[in-house]
């Protein structure tokens, strides 16, 4: 198990602060320096800078007024922006929850199969986005393994799902707020299994009854996943799955459990310890992971493309809308939308380098490595 110390500790000093060596043996002749620098700048310029500038130039080619109209006058484009803004936060939240809990389990405890678990977290990076989308279609699609079950006549799964979710949340809450010290547990805190059984089923029953009795909103809906909103969320969550966890595990490993042990020994319960000790310690690492995850989630194309079904004005996210505009030869419209996404990407880079400078020891894991191994 090498994850911790080796990834966590900064392998290179933060940007800009490194000392360019003045040793003579490392010095190249001036003409070599100049020509290599020039070539590198040309490569970066042609491959990266020119395209970025081109996006804005094309978007603004017909003036600001047209640009504005392209963005906000087309209802489908507007809808794609709203859709992206609602899909991404949900996927992000799911992955943050997962990332925190995975990092906690992996960095604080040892258990059999830990190395395997770390390796499995990387798995979605190895899967082509299109294949990821296909896999979801195979499960939830009309002819998929669960397709028939999800849309059986007269049978709607929503109340069960929501009630289960409520029960699970209640149980999680119970464990979070239970006093960590066995001596401090009184009353209900003393009997976890009883509470689990009775409380869980009570919450489930009450929620189910409430939904059924007052016929609240989702009751009579069958759950449509593919070609609908939940599918987009699932696809996005799949593709961005490893980002937060991969960022947090090395950070938490490097920080070590001492402060948390102290908090618990002073009587903090799980929630207090997490909120007052763990979270402040890892906040920059978490922010870093969230930024990367967010950028990828907003831009995700392949997986979302497969599960969305391209219902105009309904299931087109921003990248999908760009593709549709491109197919319709509406290039100004496509570039207008693309410029928004480019702006997000540039802001992401800006925030990233700010964070790298702010907390170098926490976040300076070379990013490319996130996409492959380092297990």
């Amino acid at each position, binding site marked *: 198990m090498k994850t911790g110390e080796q990834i966590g500790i900064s392998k290179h000093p933060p940007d800009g602060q490194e000392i360019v060596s003045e040793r003579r043996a*490392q010095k190249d002749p001036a003409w070599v320096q100049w020509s290599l620098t020039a070539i590198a700048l040309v490569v*970066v310029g042609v*491959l990266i800078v020119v395209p970025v500038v081109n996006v804005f130039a094309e978007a603004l080619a017909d003036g600001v007024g047209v640009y504005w109209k392209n963005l906000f006058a087309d209802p489908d484009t507007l809808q794609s922006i709203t859709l992206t803004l609602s899909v991404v936060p949900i996927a992000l939240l799911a992955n943050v929850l997962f990332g925190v809990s995975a990092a906690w389990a992996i960095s604080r*405890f040892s258990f059999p199969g830990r190395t395997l678990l770390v390796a499995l977290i990387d798995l979605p990076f190895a899967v082509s986005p*299109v294949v990821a989308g*296909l*896999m979801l279609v195979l499960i939830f699609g009309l002819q998929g393994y669960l397709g028939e079950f999800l849309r059986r006549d007269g049978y709607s799964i929503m109340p069960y799902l929501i009630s289960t979710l409520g029960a699970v949340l209640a149980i999680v809450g119970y464990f979070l707020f239970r006093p960590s010290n066995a001596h401090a547990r009184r009353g209900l805190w003393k009997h976890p299994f009883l509470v689990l059984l009775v409380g869980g089923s009570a919450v489930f029953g009450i929620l189910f009854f409430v939904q059924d009795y007052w016929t609240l909103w989702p009751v009579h809906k069958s759950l449509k996943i593919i070609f609908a909103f939940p599918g987009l969320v699932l696809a996005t969550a799949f593709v961005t799955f490893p980002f937060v966890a991969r960022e947090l595990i090395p950070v938490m490993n490097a920080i070590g459990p001492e402060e948390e042990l102290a908090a618990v020994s002073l009587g903090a319960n799980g929630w207090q310890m997490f909120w007052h000790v763990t979270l402040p310690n890892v906040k920059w690492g978490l922010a870093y992971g969230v930024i990367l995850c967010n950028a990828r989630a907003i831009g995700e194309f392949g997986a979302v493309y497969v599960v969305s079904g391209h219902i105009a004005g309904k299931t087109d996210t921003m990248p999908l809308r760009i593709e549709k505009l491109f197919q319709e030869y509406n290039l100004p419209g496509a570039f207008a939308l693309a410029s928004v996404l480019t702006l997000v990407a540039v802001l992401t*880079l800006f925030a990233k380098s700010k964070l790298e400078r702010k907390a170098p020891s926490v976040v300076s894991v*070379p*990013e490319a490595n996130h996409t492959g191994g380092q297990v």
Partner: protein
Amino acid sequence: MASVNRRVLPGFSLSLGYTVFYLSVLVLLPIAACFAKASSLSLDAFWGAVWTARARSAYLLTFGASFVAAFSNLFLGGLIAWVLVRYKFPGKRIVDSIVDLPLALPTAVGGLVYSSLYVKRGWLGRFLVPLGIQGAYTRLGIVLVLVFVGLPFVVRTVQPVLQDFDPESEEASSTLGANRWQTFYTVILPALLPALITGFALAFARCIGEYGSVVFVSGNMPFKTEIAPILIVARLEEFAYGEATAIAVLLLTTSLVMLVLINWLERWSRRYENR
């Protein structure tokens, strides 16, 4: 230490349980479904889907273009890493940050802009097209956009290794009479080799699965500019789920092998570290 924690720190079963649950539902189950669906095909059907002439040319293009792109990145990325670590120039910090742009920029945007840059009236196409270089809707276009997508991987794997490189070995080489080129070739390059290979493999793996950017620049003509992920989507749109899955399984297996290979490479390149 870590095993003691379990009795003291809260949340072991909760966090591990949730982690395993979420991982299984979101990742393992879909992958299993993919393999299950493929195994429900008969061997003939599987072979018939995977090994058609159209599919073969798609594989050839996917792997060929990815290889060329990753190989170019080896040089371009290595050069950029070298310049960023060794030389001083104004704006270096900005260049260092924008190298990551291909990771942050949505692939659809990359594809869109690359398709417009290299057409006849585009910013770069107006110089290249008269020379007979067609960088849009051709195989060259696919390679170009894959170079863009894979560039950060090589830079970011080589950069830290170069930064940690021990200056004494260079000095030794120079005092022993080697010139700068000999030093680079015999002292520095072998030390960088594992990082270069890892970066190459990462870029290659990313390029194989790439879809969003290629779909814009390629024109998607079967036998000519159709890559494997595009073929999968085409099969899906014909509702040929079995065939799509068969091709997907092939692609999936390749990328899983790549993942294992990359892990092994990284471990191999660090084999002297913990002794």
